[in-house]
């Protein structure tokens, strides 16, 4: 009976891959909290989705840890705070932690070694605060999605209040290989995470929360379960270990049993997902009034002598982390920020840690799969691996022939660039690279469209102005002529009178 019902049920997980985990080297060691404070911190003004923050400090200012450096701009943005105390020595363009390492506006902070917090009174009972106040505080603390998406969390909390959200989903999946920062966080600071979840529920005015933890992290599961025991409205559940389990739709499908419609958002089925790291940051921000100035980073990979999880101030250069963990620079053939599946390869290590940097990997030649590309044999492994239910091989063919619209027609926009297709492809076809290229190209086209609309508006405005000026000139000319005629008339009248 039971087996029949499970057979008849929709599969709870679609697609995905089981990649080699590489987590053992870091998951059993405690988070290192005594990382030596760097001399200089490079704090980019855009570490989030949305508009860049605008600096409120000047070069030469002395700032304390947690002091506001730049305030958020517009609806979707996040402020940036000083990660330690010291002097601002520069506000200029520095290379961004991005595959291109193009310049990004950055505040450079020379630390004074005291690491002195700005005085901010902790809140006695944050549950007395109005729900709006909670999301205001989360926004003011500069909290963004710490799983890697870096979407401003306050915006999501507000979304939760405005839409009828019945469940807050907390992502403790950490499905990316190598990364264990969330695992360690759950093992060591479960009470803080649970408190953060309660605060988020309060801020979103939502009744229940479900924490999903992959079953390869039994210690984290046990710790979270224990911490969540007093709160019956927080359920801690185990989910199978299968990448990309941390995709919100996959977790929703598994834990809630609902399918988010294509083109829709998780809020459409009454669910919003946050990461465990974000929940912990909310706990620190709302209860202790501490903005997001540090994060836990997994430093791992074959070229790392002592891989570990470190809590580092935002703005620390990756090269300093590498020196601390003993990275063999010659063996490190590729540096990745994030996980190996969805992370970005960085061109060098003189780039700062930002809010979204969940891991820094220094991979050796053996760990990088760099085999020659071969023809597609139409084995359809990519089709079964795609968690979004798409046809990667067909989409890639269309994109290769520049038929982007045709690729969109078969679901390119539902691709989440998880890389499962590239991972399983026996012919080593760079499938996800095609989809990333195509998404960028579509965005570029949209920008071009915006620009041409903008151009048209500018033209119309210019033409209208030209007409106005011409009309004005004509009117002035007429007025001048009329005045002249009037003058002449008066003169002639005077002449006759005389």
């Amino acid at each position, binding site marked *: 009976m039971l087996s029949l019902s499970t057979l008849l049920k929709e599969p709870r997980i679609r697609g995905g891959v089981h990649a080699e985990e590489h987590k053992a080297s870091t998951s059993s060691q405690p988070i290192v909290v005594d990382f030596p404070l760097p001399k200089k911190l490079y704090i980019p003004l*855009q570490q989030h989705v949305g508009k860049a923050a605008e600096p409120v400090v000047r070069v030469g200012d002395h700032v304390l840890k947690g002091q506001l450096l730049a305030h958020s701009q517009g609806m979707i943005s996040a402020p940036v705070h000083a990660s330690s105390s010291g002097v601002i020595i520069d506000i200029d363009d520095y290379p*961004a932690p*991005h595959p*291109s390492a*193009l*310049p*990004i506006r950055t505040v450079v902070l020379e630390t004074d070694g005291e690491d002195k917090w700005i005085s901010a009174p902790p809140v006695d009972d944050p549950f007395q605060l109005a729900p709006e106040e909670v999301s205001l505080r989360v926004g003011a603390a500069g909290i963004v999605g710490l799983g890697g998406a870096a979407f401003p969390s306050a915006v999501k909390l507000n979304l939760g209040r405005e839409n009828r959200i019945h469940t807050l989903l907390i992502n403790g999946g950490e499905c990316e290989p190598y990364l264990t920062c969330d695992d360690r966080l759950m093992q060591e600071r479960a009470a803080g995470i649970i408190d953060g979840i309660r605060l988020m529920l309060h801020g979103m005015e939502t009744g229940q929360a479900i924490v999903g933890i992959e079953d390869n992290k039994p210690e984290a599961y046990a710790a979270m379960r224990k911490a969540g025991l007093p709160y019956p409205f927080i359920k801690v559940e185990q989910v199978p270990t299968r990448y990309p389990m941390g995709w919100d739709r996959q977790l929703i499908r598994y834990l809630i049993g609902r399918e988010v419609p294509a083109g829709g958002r998780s809020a459409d089925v009454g669910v919003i997902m946050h990461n465990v790291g974000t929940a912990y940051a909310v706990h620190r921000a709302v209860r202790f009034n501490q903005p997001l100035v540090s994060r836990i980073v997994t430093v791992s990979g074959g070229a790392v002598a002592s891989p570990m999880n470190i809590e580092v101030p935002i703005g620390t250069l990756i090269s300093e982390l590498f020196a601390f963990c003993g990275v063999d620079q010659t063996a490190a053939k590729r540096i990745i920020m994030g996980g190996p599946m969805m992370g970005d390869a960085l061109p060098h290590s003189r780039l700062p840690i930002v809010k979204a940097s969940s891991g820094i990997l220094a991979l050796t030649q053996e760990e990088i799969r760099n085999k*020659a*590309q*071969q*023809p*597609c044999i*139409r084995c359809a492994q990519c089709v079964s691996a795609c968690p979004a239910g798409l046809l990667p091989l067909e989409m890639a*063919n269309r*994109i*290769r*022939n*520049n038929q982007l*619209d045709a690729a969109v027609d078969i679901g390119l926009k539902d691709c989440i660039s998880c890389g499962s297709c590239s991972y399983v492809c026996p012919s080593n076809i*760079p499938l996800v*690279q*095609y989809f*990333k*290229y195509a998404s*960028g*190209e579509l*965005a*570029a*086209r949209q*920008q*071009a*469209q915006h*620009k*041409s609309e*903008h*151009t*048209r508006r*500018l*033209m119309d*405005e*210019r033409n209208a102005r030209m007409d106005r000026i011409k009309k004005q000139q004509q009117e002035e000319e007429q007025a001048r002529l009329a005045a002249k005629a009037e003058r002449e008339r008066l003169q002639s009248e005077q002449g006759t009178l005389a």
Partner: protein
Amino acid sequence: MYILTAIVSLTTLGLILGFLLGIAARYLKVESNPIVDELEALMPGSQCGQCGYPGCRPAAEALAAGEAPPTLCPPGGSSLAEQLAKLLGVEIDLNDVQDPELLVARVSEDTCIGCTRCFKVCPTDAIVGAPKQIHAVISDACIGCKKCIAVCPTECLQMHPVEVTLRNWRWPKPAVAEGVATC
């Protein structure tokens, strides 16, 4: 007397002919091809002339007549080409379309004399300045029509490629490995 006759007859003639012309304009009107209007609406409308036609309207007419390819508009790029081809119902192979490198004008501050000529010709008001003040180009609004280059007396305006920033950086297209048949 002769003068009066001449005036009256010529005036009458003029009125009659004018009336006839008026009627002809109304009833013998040449309908413009409606597709031309649609094509023109898609085009940038800046009359920059980079396509080789005097403006967007003549270019749209040439397109409708099939005298010009849908890929004629450099500021529109491949996205416009695709839209035009869709409207015209023709197949285009964007493989061969080299998206021309987008250029924007930039003022060299050393040689600008503040003559104001450039911003008077700029179709999108992308150049700001005042007499005897150094001018500047707002690159977001510049469409690369080069009209300002032609009028600048000191050649201080020059075209530069659009700067690559984090906002417009894109992933490159993966190279197809040699010897790999594409299916």
